[in-house]
């Protein structure tokens, strides 16, 4: 009996893999190399944790990242030291900017070689420090289970983020074994994220919202990360608030709901930016007043009292001063607000200013008429907006949509009306080209029955196109919507607007034949060059359930994304088309 209670003896590599399993990890994305060979051997000798072999480490990070965005659980990456680790840097920074939980395990040269400029040695602790929530280096193999637990705890709690675990090769030697015991939970005296929010501040916020004449709810990625869409939606409806979502927050409030006024910011809707600028109370929930939202901070929303809920105190009053700050996770804070509202209702107290709100909605509906997401239709050319609308129809608005970065990203954000959270997966903060395809792969792997669409452009897709090979290996039937205009579209748009159309290095000459390329990797390629070809092509693509289909869709090369805020202006100063300005 006593023999059975003895902890099992495992090598550092085996402990790492077992700890990942005990943490509930199903997939690890990575690429082997010298410093992680012991770990790869430990992976080989078990079947619980599955490894996905990418073609470039950056893709592994984006897969893990997208899995986290879709599921809420940390994604796990395994790379070797030196170039393996540095190739992961862009993906780590991408996750850091968008507060995505991720655990990145990097091999390192043997402890006694550290500092000697050994083969494939880089100071990954130093390199990753500014782009991680935390990083740790293993000094003693026996610490591995505790350090894995700590890595997941830090990555997933509070404001989430990536954690790097640097493991020197001699920490994983197969012959050196240690008793394995995975800790149930972990406490850190220096890290204790405040969760609930101050009830007094919450009451003050609620009173302010009840008294508001021109309120707006501005919600961001924190609502998605904090799984608080239901609470947000209920509160918005009960308080009759117009709701705008940031790029990171799309889907947190259903886009088809009449109270939704669109995305805000640089390419936000006319009405969302007008509502923000003219609001008397801005209720910011899990959003961080990013420069792509506020435009010039000095001109930002001059009349507004600002209520700001965020788990990260450093995000409050960083760029825009908050009048009523609430530090806490959005879900418990919104729940507390709802329960306070229940109590007021029970006392028949806390009435909204219905007259003022009716006037406000009247004004909002007038703003909705001004631009309304219109775009010019052309008989001979496909418009990117029309493509996104068609994709929305064919997927019944229920797909996971990943994107790269540029015009196509903004069109997808504007025209794919997201009704559910965790469905829109894009690199908002860092703006990482090459994100879309690996992100789609990460989602498809975990949700094989779901429709997963990668909206991309001919520039972005080529930044990680080698992953078409990984898709074949693992049978990942994602649908790639390549909005091909032959230009780096967003660069070109800025060159049109600010540089007299001098297209400095924004024209993509010598593009590959994407159809043949997709076929070369063993997938299906379809080219669409006219509006009539679009519907049958989408029909065929989505009918091929288990196949990757690469739709190379040639679109109007001249189209710009509108509305667009006038740089250096207030929220409501916008270009509405190539010829109209507010």
């Amino acid at each position, binding site marked *: 009996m006593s023999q059975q209670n003895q902890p099992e003896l495992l090598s550092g590599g085996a402990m790492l893999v077992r700890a990942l399993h005990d943490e509930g990890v199903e997939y690890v994305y990575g690429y082997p190399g010298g410093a992680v060979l012991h770990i790869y051997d430990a992976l080989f000798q078990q079947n619980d944790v599955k490894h996905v072999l990418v073609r470039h480490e950056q893709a592994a990070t984006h897969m893990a990242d997208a899995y986290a965005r879709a599921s809420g659980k940390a994604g796990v990456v395994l790379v070797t030291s030196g170039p393996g680790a540095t190739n992961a840097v862009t993906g780590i920074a991408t996750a850091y900017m968008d507060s995505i939980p991720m655990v990145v395990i990097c091999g390192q040269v043997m402890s006694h070689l550290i500092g000697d400029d050994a083969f494939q040695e880089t100071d990954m602790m*130093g390199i990753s*420090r500014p782009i991680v929530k935390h990083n740790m280096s293993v000094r003693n193999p026996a610490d591995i289970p505790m350090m894995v637990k700590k890595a997941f705890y830090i990555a997933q709690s509070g404001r989430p983020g990536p954690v790097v675990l640097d493991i020197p090769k001699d920490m994983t030697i197969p012959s050196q074994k240690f008793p394995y015991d995975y800790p149930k939970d972990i406490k850190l005296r*220096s890290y204790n994220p405040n969760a609930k929010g101050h009830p007094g501040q919450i009451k003050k916020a609620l009173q302010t919202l009840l008294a508001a004449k021109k309120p707006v709810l501005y919600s961001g990625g924190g609502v998605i990360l904090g799984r608080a869409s239901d609470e947000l939606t209920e509160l918005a409806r009960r308080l009759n608030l117009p709701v705008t979502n940031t790029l990171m927050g799309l889907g947190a409030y259903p886009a088809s709901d009449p109270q939704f006024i669109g995305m805000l910011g640089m390419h936000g809707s006319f009405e969302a930016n007008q509502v923000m600028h003219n609001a008397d109370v801005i209720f910011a929930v899990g959003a961080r007043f990013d420069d792509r939202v506020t435009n010039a901070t000095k001109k930002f929303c001059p009349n507004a009292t600002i209520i700001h809920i965020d788990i990260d105190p*450093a995000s409050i*009053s960083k760029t825009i001063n908050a009048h009523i700050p609430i530090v806490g996770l959005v879900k418990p804070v919104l729940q507390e607000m709802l329960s306070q509202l229940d109590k007021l209702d029970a006392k028949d107290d806390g009435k909204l200013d219905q007259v003022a709100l009716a006037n406000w909605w009247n004004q909002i509906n007038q703003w909705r008429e001004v631009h309304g997401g219109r775009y010019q239709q052309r008989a001979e050319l496909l418009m990117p907006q029309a493509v996104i609308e068609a994709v929305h129809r064919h997927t019944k608005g229920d797909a996971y949509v990943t994107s790269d970065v540029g015009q196509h990203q903004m069109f997808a954000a504007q025209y794919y009306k997201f009704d559910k959270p965790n469905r829109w997966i894009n690199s908002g903060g860092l703006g990482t080209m090459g994100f879309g395809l690996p992100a789609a792969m990460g989602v498809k792997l975990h949700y094989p029955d779901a429709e997963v669409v990668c909206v991309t452009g001919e520039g972005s897709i080529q930044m990680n196109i080698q992953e078409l090979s990984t898709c074949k290996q693992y049978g990942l039937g994602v649908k790639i919507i390549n909005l091909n205009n032959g230009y780096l579209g967003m660069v070109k748009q800025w060159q049109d607007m600010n540089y007299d159309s001098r297209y400095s290095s924004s024209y993509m000459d010598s593009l590959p034949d994407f159809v043949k390329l997709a076929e070369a990797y063993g997938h299906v390629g379809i080219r669409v060059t006219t509006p009539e070809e679009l519907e049958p092509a989408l029909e065929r693509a989505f009918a091929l359930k288990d196949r990757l289909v690469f739709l190379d869709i040639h679109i109007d090369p001249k189209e710009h994304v509108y509305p667009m805020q006038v740089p250096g202006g207030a929220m409501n100063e916008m270009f509405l088309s190539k010829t109209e300005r507010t």
Partner: protein
Amino acid sequence: MRHIIAVLLENESGALARVVGLFAQRGYNIDSLTVAATEDPTLSRLTLVTRGDDQVIEQITKQLHKLIEVVKLVDLSDNAHIERELMMVKVKASGDQREEVKRCADIFRAQIIDVSPTTYTIQVVGTSDKLEAFIQALCNTQILEVVRTGVSGIARGERSLAL
């Protein structure tokens, strides 16, 4: 405005680099920084002197708090506090200069801690202002070397930064 921030930090490798890195990454100033282990060997105490308006200082303290290894911190400038810095100055001291430098050191309650036939090494302890004033007072003397520890700070009275 000048602020003195005292930080209790996990005494782990890389923790200090994180603090210094934060200041570099976010463009905050560091006038001085001192760090050493406390009576509890698992904790380091760090005193940072920085400058910035209220908004910048608020961001600095919040960003420091976000570092996983930062256990506690306090802006000492918010309340009555004591600050001290130690400086060692090596000066040319020969002929008439020898006596004059000694007198000057006495006035500042500085100590001569090393002597050679041509030099004195003087130790001064006090606020940064006092150290500056001592250097000014040595204006007729040839200074060979100045080394300062940076400011250490502690709150007055019963207030204390501890676990």
